[in-house]
């Protein structure tokens, strides 16, 4: 179309002197009208400029022309940049800058501007300059060289070109308005897309419960929405910052702590002095740092570098990315909370399981014995504890009772208690020599523990035939043997606590037993139970209660002690496992 039109124009005429024939003027007018029609339907700056160039070259027989306009907006046109085309004339940016400052109207001869500029124009081959402008706005200039026959332009020719330029100015204004409309339309669409992304991510983040997934989703949104190819994410949240996503080589070794207190986005330049790391990051390609804000604190950073289009990030995009980062911060925080509560829940389940196992290790139902009545009582402080007691029927006439207290609490104590029980039961099944058994137990416990773990242990075997109680005490609170005649014997024979030294020798005690005698065994949870004033229950108080109640049945004796402890302790929390075993010999 362009081409046809040029031919039509160039074929129109030789130039005419003033007062040229009416026919020529008519042809000129027709070509101007045609030009106006074509240019006004075009939205392309280059097409418009090219058209007036070719039209005047053909009509005036000049070979050198050039045109320049300032492009308005529009990514495709190159925002704020100059569009220039030329045939045989090329002008430097300096010359164009000067010309824009002059703000010409109409047209002037190239020699009519001030000296230095006139010379530069003449050097470039420019003979005349035409402003491309509407009444209120200068878009650019059209330059024309000498005619092929070597002369300047005649007045009618100047008028012709001026008219062409006016038509072009109107067309460019039209295109510029259209471009602005197109720009704001696509800006609007981009904003809508941003909002959709925020909406979508807030929905998606609410479903996510792990940090890597949340980070990956954030990455996709950043890449998809901005086209960023270089970026990194660093999470701090009050701790040492850790880079969790890194697509910017060289930042891993930098100290990002100074940025972790940022509360708004920061554009970096390599001449920045504050914070210290900013200039270094800028040199590595980071353009913007955007903080993750969570409950008024900065919990992470998005470091944003170049994107595929290489265009700078707009303020509105930074606002969008800030919102996105804040959403991500919330999702990551939720993921951490979820993980913590899951871990806690799992631990509780394991504790409950361990508690159930431990309860099964301790004897629950007492076997029936000839010549004795046994009761036990046990309250652990935590779900699992380190107290151990056992009642074993060796045969119809032989009963074994034991009590022990493992140092420490919780899982380690419970494990050691289980270890002690299995060893003790196995040894009891094999032989009856209590001193030998205790020596072996000591070696086993020593071998299985560190120096800071130990066990106080007491075991006794009672024969209803011989009516004797054989016992060994390895550092345990002395049990009471309440004689039916009112005497009290403390059972203290034995040796060292289990687990302190590799080899230890133990002696056994031997007490004759009469009908009505009571054996009372306890752990320090009884004697050292604390009240609110941090006072201990004490063995003296315990002895008093035992004296008063020794004629009762074992279960009733234990109940009496328990009631006294409850009264004594009041509202104070239980500080240690409480275990009691009581045997009445009949």
């Amino acid at each position, binding site marked *: 179309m362009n081409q046809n039109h040029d031919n039509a124009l160039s074929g129109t005429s030789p130039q005419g002197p003033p007062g040229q024939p009416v026919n020529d003027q008519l042809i000129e007018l027709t070509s101007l009208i045609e030009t106006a029609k074509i240019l006004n339907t075009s939205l392309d700056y280059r097409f418009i400029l090219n058209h007036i160039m070719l039209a005047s070259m053909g009509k005036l027989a000049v070979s050198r022309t050039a045109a320049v306009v300032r492009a308005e907006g529009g990514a495709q046109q190159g925002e704020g940049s100059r569009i220039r085309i030329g045939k045989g004339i090329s002008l430097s940016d300096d010359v164009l800058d000067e010309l824009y400052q002059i703000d010409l109207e109409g047209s002037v001869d190239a020699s009519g501007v001030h000296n230095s500029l006139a010379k530069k124009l003449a050097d470039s081959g420019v003979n005349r300059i035409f402003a491309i402008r509407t009444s209120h706005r200068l878009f650019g200039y059209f330059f024309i060289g000498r005619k092929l026959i070597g002369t300047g332009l005649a007045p009618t020719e100047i008028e012709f070109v001026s008219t062409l330029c006016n038509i072009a100015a109107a067309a460019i204004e039209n295109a510029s308005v259209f471009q602005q409309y197109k720009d704001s339309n696509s800006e609007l669409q981009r904003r809508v897309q941003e909002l959709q992304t925020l909406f979508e*991510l807030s929905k998606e983040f609410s479903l996510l419960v792990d940090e890597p997934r949340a980070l990956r989703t954030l990455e*996709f*949104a950043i890449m998809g929405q901005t*086209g960023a190819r270089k970026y990194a994410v660093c999470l701090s949240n009050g701790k040492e910052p850790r880079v969790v996503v890194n697509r910017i080589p060289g930042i891993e070794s930098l100290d990002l702590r100074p940025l972790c207190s940022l509360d708004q986005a920061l554009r970096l330049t390599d001449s920045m002095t504050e914070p210290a790391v900013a200039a270094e990051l800028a040199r590595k390609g980071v353009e913007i740092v955007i903080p993750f804000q969570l409950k008024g604190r900065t919990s992470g950073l998005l470091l944003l570098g170049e994107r595929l289009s290489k265009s700078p990030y707009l303020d509105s995009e930074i606002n969008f990315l800030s919102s996105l980062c804040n959403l991500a911060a919330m999702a990551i925080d939720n993921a951490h909370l979820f993980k913590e509560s899951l871990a806690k829940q799992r631990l509780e389940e394991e504790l409950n399981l361990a508690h159930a196992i431990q309860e099964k290790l301790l004897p629950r139902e007492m076997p029936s014995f000839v010549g004795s009545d046994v009761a036990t009582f046990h309250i652990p402080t935590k779900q699992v504890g380190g107290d151990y007691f056992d009642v074993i029927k060796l045969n119809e006439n032989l009963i074994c009772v034991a009590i022990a207290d493992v140092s420490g609490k919780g899982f380690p104590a419970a494990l050691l208690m289980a270890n002690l029980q299995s060893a003790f039961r196995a040894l009891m099944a094999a032989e009856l020599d209590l001193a030998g058994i205790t020596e072996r137990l000591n070696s086993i416990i020593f071998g299985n523990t560190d120096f800071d773990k130990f066990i106080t242990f007491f075991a006794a075997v009672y024969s209803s035939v011989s009516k004797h109680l054989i016992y060994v005490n390895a550092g345990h609170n002395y049990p009471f043997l309440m004689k039916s005649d009112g005497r009290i014997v403390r059972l203290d024979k034995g040796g060292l606590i289990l687990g302190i030294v590799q080899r230890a020798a133990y002696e056994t005690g031997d007490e004759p037993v009469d009908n009505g005698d009571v054996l009372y065994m306890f752990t320090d949870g009884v004697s050292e139970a604390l009240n609110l004033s941090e006072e201990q229950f004490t063995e003296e108080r315990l002895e008093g209660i035992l004296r008063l109640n020794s004629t009762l049945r074992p279960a009733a004796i234990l109940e009496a002690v328990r009631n006294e402890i409850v009264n004594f302790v009041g509202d104070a929390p239980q500080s240690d496992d409480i275990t009691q075993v009581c045997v009445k010999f009949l």
Partner: protein
Amino acid sequence: MNEFKVLTRDSGNAVVMDLHGFLDAHTAPDLEKTFAELIGKGKFNIVVNFDALNYISSAGLGVFMAYIDEVRGNHGDIKLANMQQKVFNVFDLLGFPFLYEIYKDQDEALKKFNSQ
């Protein structure tokens, strides 16, 4: 919940990925997985057939960004084809036509790979 499905098939020296349904933040991991598998197998000539894809969000676009550098670094490319207009509009809005070759028809894209 809107479904998303991705199937792959070999075609000459390239692999065609057929996308179906809705590609958004929720379904992006499925596409990510497929890309990772192809790249893991050393397949870098990839044509994505959008014919049956009804919706794409920014996060969905992000997946293509995530792999383009690695694919091109291995002398391959991700070429896009058969987009519905509304899907193309999203690509266009975010400037992707400058970054990716987008074809009306997957055969054109395949021809490009095969002529290499």
